[in-house]
């Protein structure tokens, strides 16, 4: 495969947050929120980033859209390294990469009407105004399933699902190729979540959109994603096609996580692996970051060395000492 097959190609991404202390704030240690993460997303496909709090999934999303400056690594988007783009160019490039936010209410400026909110990117990137912008905004409202009469309304008059549709319309306004979706449905009710998920799916098919889908809800990820990357304390522990992750997971963390999904099925008799402790508090100094909570038969090396990501074919990568041989 050549690079051009991937719309997004993230290589060795690192994001460290400095923690200062000392008399003049001079001593610096680092919180390694994202530590050497690489992945690719082909055009028109969906990659799910899954993990618990502290896994770094949202940080990755914010790095990809450059809300955060990256510490190291490359974010190649259609052969441009976003990580090094100067602000002026970045702001122009933003028409290609858009983000959908976790809390739809908070992501909309309460002092602007829906019409103004969706028209803003049109003005910024195309200098469209008044009638011409309005025409386009109405198209977009229709695309996301809102009505014309919503044009002059304010965000607080809408339900969460509708607000998220407004967010999607704003993102689509300037024809992006990549959408970074940061927990887009976790603030929504189940019945509304289904509507939004379906909308996202229709939009992807119709407009060949590429999604980076960040979520902690494995059910939703299983439904929507083509490939899934599991993150644990800032590192990818397993990445594979969605079927493999859910049917034949290798990594003990993946296995535990899958078994912990509460299936809406009282007859679901799968054996459940209940992990002890908490990810962020059990961060070890060295060795496999998951070792302190791992319920598999650990090896001596687990506490000593960090396992590398090994390839098991068909793009299935696992970082675990229990699987020493790649293909």
């Amino acid at each position: 495969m050549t690079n051009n097959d991937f719309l997004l190609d993230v290589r060795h991404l690192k994001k460290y947050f400095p923690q200062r202390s000392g008399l003049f704030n001079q001593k610096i240690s680092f919180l390694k929120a994202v530590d050497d993460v690489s992945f690719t997303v082909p055009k028109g496909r969906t990659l799910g980033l899954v993990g618990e709090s502290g896994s770094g999934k949202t940080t990755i999303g914010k790095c990809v859209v450059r809300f955060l400056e990256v510490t190291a690594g490359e974010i190649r988007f259609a052969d441009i390294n976003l990580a090094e783009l100067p602000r002026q160019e970045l702001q122009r490039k933003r028409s290609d990469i858009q983000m959908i936010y976790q809390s739809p209410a908070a992501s909309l400026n309460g002092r602007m009407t829906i019409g103004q909110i969706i028209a803003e990117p049109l003005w910024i990137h195309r200098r469209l105004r008044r009638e011409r912008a309005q025409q386009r905004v109405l198209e977009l409202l229709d695309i996301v399933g809102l009505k014309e009469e919503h044009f002059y309304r304010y965000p607080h008059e809408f339900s969460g699902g509708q607000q998220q549709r407004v967010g999607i319309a704003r993102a689509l306004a300037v024809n992006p190729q990549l959408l970074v979706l940061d927990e887009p449905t976790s603030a929504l009710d189940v019945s509304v979540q289904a509507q939004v998920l379906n909308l996202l799916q229709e939009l992807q098919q119709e407009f060949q959109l590429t999604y980076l889908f960040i979520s902690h809800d494995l059910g939703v990820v299983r439904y929507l994603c083509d490939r899934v990357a599991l993150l644990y304390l800032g590192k990818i522990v397993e990445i594979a096609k969605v079927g493999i992750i859910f049917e034949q997971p290798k990594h003990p963390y993946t296995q535990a996580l899958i078994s912990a999904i509460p299936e809406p099925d009282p007859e679901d008799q799968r054996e459940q692996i209940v992990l002890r402790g908490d990810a962020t508090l059990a961060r070890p100094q060295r060795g496999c970051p998951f070792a302190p909570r791992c319920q598999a038969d650990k090896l001596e090396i687990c506490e000593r060395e960090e396992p590398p990501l090994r390839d098991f074919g068909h793009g299935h990568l696992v970082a675990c000492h229990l699987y020493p041989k790649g293909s």
Partner: protein
Amino acid sequence: MGTPLLDIQDLHVEFRTFDGVSKVLAGVNLRMERGDVLGLVGETGCGKSMTALSIARLIPTPPGRISAGRIHFAGEDILEKAPAEMQPFRARHLGMIFQDPTTNLNPLFTIHEQLIDAVLYQRHRSQRVPGKWKGFLPSARQLRREAHRQALELLKTVGIPDGRRRIFDYPHQFSGGMRQRVLIAMALAGDPDLLIADEPTTALDVTIQAQILLLITDLVKQLGLSVLLITHNLGVVAKTCEKVAVMYAGRVIEQSPVQELFTHPKHPYTRGLLSAVPTKRTRRGELRGIPGMIPNLIDPPSGCRFHPRCPKVMDRCSQQVPPLVQIGPDHSTSCHLYSEHHDE
């Protein structure tokens, strides 16, 4: 079976807002026997938390008020009680835990301080609890020492084994899962007849959620606890509860054993809800949401409040409120589709 532990009949709760009176609960009927683990399911604004707060009489008044209905708890009518009687009632009979373990513990006090107060005030009448400043009295010291011992025991019960060391820590020194365990310990301190758990795992990670659900299941077995588990997550209900009640827009629309509800849902809303959750059997593009959105409770739809979104709506749905009717052993629903059968 004798008197049920909890019997809510035709409960109405209203909230005054700028735009008018919001009819948050409009005739809730709910029954729990001793030892039941009942799941109360519904979406935002369906009134499941309001129902829970009504049982404890913790509805903020004003703007809210219980406008009609009865709540019998072990035979006593709670709504008849004077406000002053409610504090000892809550202390003795109820335990509650809420969604966010971070905000439900007071950040400025040690776990010790908060747990000891929970023990003291739940096990003694409040007049008999000496303040901390009376600590020099031998009787008071004895009482506090006893409470300390009980607090440690509670921590062990909820799975914090090194309680002796950690009890003097502050909430922010605990992880989310641990905080929820502490809160459960506080709720259990008075040996309650009923534990009301309002979305106890919603703010937690999946693996931590599994831990807490396991703990609740264990406590049910160990202590014979009755639990009212309020959640929006059908998976959590399937995993934890024996019975389930589904709420929509201020009413219970279906109540049945868990197995029955998931295999033979009757009410169109319950069916819609079940088909809206992606499971391992759901194929791409097959997920069905429920069209429309939850109704405005200031001016709710007439008749059945679900009728504007219902795929099987009939004429009478907008005219009459469907009664809650028995359609099988322990299975009841309020829908005109089934009340017809009943009438014949």
